[in-house]
């Protein structure tokens, strides 16, 4: 065979003419020894960092299930007759998400919480035929960035309503007009505060808009499902459900809605059906509205899903069950609020209810520095506590924060 110079397209001026300055190669046992030495420098640090990505306990069975090669290597299940296993897990994931959120239909997932929230805004615009989306600035800043990008391209107006600096809660109510397609609320909000939702849905619906709620699915172990307080579309980041933080991604976009809006849902949906012999089976359904068939007129340009992460979420929820999820949520709530009480004078909104995160005034490098996203919150940090934080850690932290 002829010798081919694969680098001929790269100009000689930018090619390295001498060998890279690297140490001599090691044998595999030597290399393992070297890596072991390096890993010994690692320290298990408690960072109390949340802000959208959370360290919750993952039962080992979850990893075992997602590591099975039938799931790990599965390709998009277009061919139902060869993909019943993966299709069934997606169907079960969707059913669990419906139960958790109080919605009637859920899709097979979106890329992450930010894209799920944005797709919900676009869906509200499609359904209402309106062009304005209202959000509170107490929604995750990254989510709002993604929303801004999409709104710009989709010719939608994004109206951001500042949160109430006295309570750390959203104050959306007086701002609805007949132009608004959807109003988006995060529950608990980015600061960990539990929003007051009692009559919000009625006011939003009276203006002819849709009510979109972005959730932390773990909080639904103790908080009301948004379907019960009038949400039309429920989205969220599902990483908390059995998935590690992975240095910030990939995430799992939860997306669920009322049945009336089924045909405007983005992404793919798995449905149950019967085969020619009358046996139960699963197929991708409503894919005629997806991009690979409907091109630029598709309901969404997300034509895929996070199947492996959805499977982990499905396994996690199955293992935890209702009682387990409730217990995790209660532990998060108790731990965060135990510390919140102890350091009350350092807490920005001590009288607002919070779930697993809250804002403190501190110079210490813990949690998330809020100044990055909110210049007015200079000197404040968002700290997070999950069921994995021990009481001794909380007491130690309380001492250090005083």
């Amino acid at each position, binding site marked *: 065979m002829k010798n081919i110079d694969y680098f001929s397209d790269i100009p000689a001026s930018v090619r390295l003419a001498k060998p890279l300055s690297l140490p001599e190669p090691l044998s595999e046992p030597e290399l393992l020894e070297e890596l072991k030495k390096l890993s010994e420098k690692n320290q298990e640090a408690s960072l109390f960092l949340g802000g959208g990505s959370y360290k919750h306990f993952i039962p080992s069975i979850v990893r075992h299930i997602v590591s099975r090669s039938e799931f790990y290597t599965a390709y998009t299940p277009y061919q139902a007759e060869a993909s019943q296993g993966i299709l069934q897990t997606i169907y079960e994931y969707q059913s669990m998400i419906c139960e958790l959120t109080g919605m009637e239909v859920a899709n097979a997932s979106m890329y992450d919480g930010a894209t799920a929230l944005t797709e919900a805004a676009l869906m509200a615009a499609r359904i209402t035929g309106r062009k304005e989306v209202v959000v509170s600035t107490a929604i995750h800043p990254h989510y709002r960035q993604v929303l801004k990008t999409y709104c710009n391209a989709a010719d939608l107006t994004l109206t951001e309503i500042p949160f109430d600096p006295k309570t750390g809660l959203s104050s959306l109510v007086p701002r609805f007009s007949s132009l608004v397609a959807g109003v988006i609320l995060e529950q608990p909000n980015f600061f960990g505060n539990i929003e007051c939702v009692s009559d919000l849905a009625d006011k939003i619906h009276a203006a002819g808009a849709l009510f979109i709620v972005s959730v932390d699915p773990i909080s639904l172990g103790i908080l009301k499902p948004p379907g019960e307080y009038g949400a039309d579309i429920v989205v969220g980041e599902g990483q908390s459900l059995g998935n590690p933080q992975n240095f910030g991604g990939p995430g799992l976009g939860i997306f669920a809605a009322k049945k009336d809006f089924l*045909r405007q849902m983005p992404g793919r949906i798995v449905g149950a059906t019967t085969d020619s012999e009358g046996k139960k089976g699963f197929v991708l359904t409503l894919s*005629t*509205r997806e991009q690979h*068939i*409907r091109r630029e*007129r598709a309901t969404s340009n997300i034509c895929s899903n996070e199947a492996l992460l959805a499977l982990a979420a499905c396994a996690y929820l199955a293992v935890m069950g209702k009682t387990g999820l409730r217990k995790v949520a209660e532990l998060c709530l108790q731990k965060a609020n135990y510390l919140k009480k102890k350091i009350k004078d350092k807490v920005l909104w001590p009288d607002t209810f919070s779930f697993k995160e809250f804002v403190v005034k501190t110079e210490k490098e813990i949690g998330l520095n809020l100044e990055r996203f909110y210049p007015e919150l200079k000197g404040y940090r968002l700290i997070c506590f999950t069921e994995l934080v021990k009481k001794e850690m909380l007491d130690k932290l309380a001492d250090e924060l005083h």
Partner: protein
Amino acid sequence: MTLYPEDLKYTKTHEWAKIEGKIATVGITHFAQDSLGDVVFVELPPVGKELKAEQEFGVVESVKSVSSLYAPVSGKVIERNSQLELHPELVNQSPYQDGWLIKVEVSNPAELDQLLTSQAYQDFLKSEKH
């Protein structure tokens, strides 16, 4: 029975319109329903909506695709075929009778001259085949 009745007007996007005074009844042609295959869902505009000729007014979904519907004439939607909500298959079974989609109050009768006759539509279909 003819596949393209003489008393209807046609569009190149495969809709038909039956003109009775100021009212146009709109549906899709035999060719359209046959190409789509089994229709499973029809999405129609609300009564009262003002349509412009050639503007998209809804979609028809079959087991293999979703296609846009385009208004043959401008005007206000005065009625929609509510039977299609439960029986979308009427579009296949009876595209010119029970499978009609909407009735429009025509606002610009001059546009009617732009529509194709049965013969012109059939010639168009033949030319598209090549």
